[in-house]
């Protein structure tokens, strides 16, 4: 058992008091951190939506999918160099990731400090399970993203030993492996949960839900978006397993 403070001796109440802060800046507050998290989260949401659209091209077959992958890299040429747009997107994503993870970690740390002694019994009556899953869900997503990039972008790992320079084939080989599919589907469920709470939460953080109606709408929007994205992403692995997507 740990005790509540770092105090060792209390002569009077004055010793328990904290002074008023003097230097105050809005940008230093927890709320500013949250705004950073919401903004980066929403950038992710945009990205995943586009990414999902791209993935669904797999239903169009090898050619459609690979052309699309190629297009991504030639988009904007000659104004942009080969892969230029992709690098801009990547830069934005990397910055967002750093912001998102850093703010998440800071808030997590703060929350742990804010309650050093835990309750012996604690019920949750107002929270959704999704909201309580955010942090561990986020960690899962981070691990997933690392693996995912190794899998498809940086490492181009093909566990079946097949080709790695053909995006379509890499994809099909990956989901022909049951345990990889499983990892992806679990990750997509996590993503769904993350977005179920995350989307409405971001609206709340940005101050868009200052009445009961707006709050209900934001929650409904979060749920719909989460379902669309989870299902949308899951289609490709599932249909690969069932052999609809193949080569």
């Amino acid at each position, binding site marked *: 058992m740990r005790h509540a403070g770092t105090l060792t001796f209390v002569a009077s109440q004055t010793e328990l008091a904290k002074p008023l802060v003097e230097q*105050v800046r809005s940008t230093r507050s927890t709320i500013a951190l949250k705004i950073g998290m919401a903004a980066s989260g929403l950038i992710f949401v945009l990205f995943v939506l586009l990414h999902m659209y791209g993935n669904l091209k797999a239903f169009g077959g090898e050619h459609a999918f690979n052309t699309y992958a190629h297009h991504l890299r030639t988009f904007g040429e000659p104004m942009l160099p080969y892969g230029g747009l992709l690098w801009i997107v990547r830069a934005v994503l990397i910055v967002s990731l750093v912001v998102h993870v850093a703010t998440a970690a800071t808030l997590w740390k703060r929350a742990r400090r804010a309650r050093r002694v835990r*309750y012996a019994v604690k019920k949750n009556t107002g929270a959704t399970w999704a909201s309580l899953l955010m942090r561990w869900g986020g960690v899962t997503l981070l691990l997933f993203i690392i693996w995912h990039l190794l899998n498809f972008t940086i490492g181009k790992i093909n566990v079946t030993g097949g080709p790695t320079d053909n995006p379509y084939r890499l994809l099909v080989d990956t989901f022909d492996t049951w345990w990889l599919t499983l990892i992806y589907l679990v990750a997509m469920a996590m993503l769904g949960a993350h977005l179920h709470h995350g989307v409405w939460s971001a609206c709340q953080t940005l101050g868009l839900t200052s009445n009961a109606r707006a709050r209900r709408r934001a929650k409904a929007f979060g749920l719909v978006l989460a379902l669309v994205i989870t299902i949308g992403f899951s289609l490709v692995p599932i249909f690969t397993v069932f052999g609809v997507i193949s080569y």
Partner: protein
Amino acid sequence: MNLTLKIWRQPDPVSEGALATYQVEDISEDMSFLEMLDVLNERLNSEGEEPIAFDSDCREGICGMCGLMINGDAHGPLRTTTCQLHMRTFKDGETITIEPWRSTAFPVLKDLCVDRRAFDRIIQQGGYVSVNTGAAPDAHAMPVPKAQADRAFDTATCIGCGACVASCPNGSASLFLGAKITHLGELPQGQAERDTRVVKMVAQHDHEGFGGCTNIGECAAACPKEIPLDVISQLNKDLRTAVRHGY
């Protein structure tokens, strides 16, 4: 009815505490929860054991002095203050765990009493309208639309009990903070200091060691005055506006 109580006992702010078990018999269901503790204390006193310290004053749900974590619910299973909770809510033979509010910013003083002066210091950082006595214009000089006046009132009913903090998984005081921001922000009188108020109050909130809000919603579910989550959105929005205004 007969009950088994597990109550947190802690002699002072720096010593370690632990749950102690007591049996109480012949509790009338018309008793309030605190009267049930009074009965136990009366018995402890006669047995030579120091009575359990817990806070209460008005015992009618308005002063905000009482507040216990009862079986993991702030103020117990009903949406009311601890002093307004009656024993008919419990079943004969039940075991009830009673803990103090757990928050680093609310150090335990003794047994079930905590120090909530952090709330006062948050108010010191701008939870008011700066008007000196005698300097006020006629009350009818500034009409306030009824809808705004009503919302201001609804949010002004916060009793500062701290149940929001106690129930929040992050130990955040955002509901308390949002209630005051919304109350003053709705009224014309509160406009002049709107930006500085939110920045300073949030800074003190963070400084006191409360956690950041991640929109979990436990607070609003525990709030005996039914302050809605809207106020946290309003708080975030006001802070965002202050950021934009360069504070």
